[in-house]
């Protein structure tokens, strides 16, 4: 069964606005990761948050994790056209076990 599910499936915003994507999962996790995939390319790792962490920042990215609700959010601030891509969350239930990806959110940032 699918572990991570992103919401919304698609998001369209204007350059300069903030973009928020959510990920929900079903079972306990060791950590949660976010990846970006530009059209026709491979996935690029963005950020990892461990199950005992609640918030993490990296540049314009802010990730939160709520293990009680089994959910995470990815916030991209001051979005740019170059942020247009699909964003996936991925979880592993046990340290070193299979990484399971969600279906992704397609983000479009209009110039």
């Amino acid at each position: 069964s699918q572990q991570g599910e992103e919401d919304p499936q698609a998001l369209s915003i204007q350059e300069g606005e903030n973009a928020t994507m959510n990920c929900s999962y079903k079972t306990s996790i060791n950590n949660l990761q976010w990846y970006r995939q530009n059209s026709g390319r491979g996935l690029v790792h963005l950020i990892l948050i461990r199950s005992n962490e609640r918030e993490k920042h990296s540049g314009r990215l802010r990730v939160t994790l709520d293990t009680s609700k089994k959910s995470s959010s990815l916030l991209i601030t001051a979005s740019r056209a170059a942020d247009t891509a699909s964003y996936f969350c991925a979880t592993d239930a046990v340290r070193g076990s299979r990484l399971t990806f969600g279906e992704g959110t397609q983000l479009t940032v209009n110039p």
Partner: protein
Amino acid sequence: EAGVAQSPRYKIIEKRQSVAFWCNPISGHATLYWYQQILGQGPKLLIQFQNNGVVDDSQLPKDRFSAERLKGVDSTLKIQPAKLEDSAVYLCASSFNRVNTIYFGEGSWLTVV
């Protein structure tokens, strides 16, 4: 640092034919992964190697898919015979070990007609 290399980038075959994809991971990375990504979906793990041993192949359709990683470096993924539903991007990835960040290649796009 060179990234994960994959070839071919694109392949079109007829159903029931065979195809093979090759992957060269980042130097020094012990863990190698093959993912299948169907258009509009997230990647699904097919097989995971730790050096040249298989760690997880529970989602690999073993009646038609096979993979090997000889000498714990390069890997090949083979599909024989191919079905229409095998049309997807096959992503190879590697990591230093099983708990580190995963680095993906650009993928091999397969169309089965």
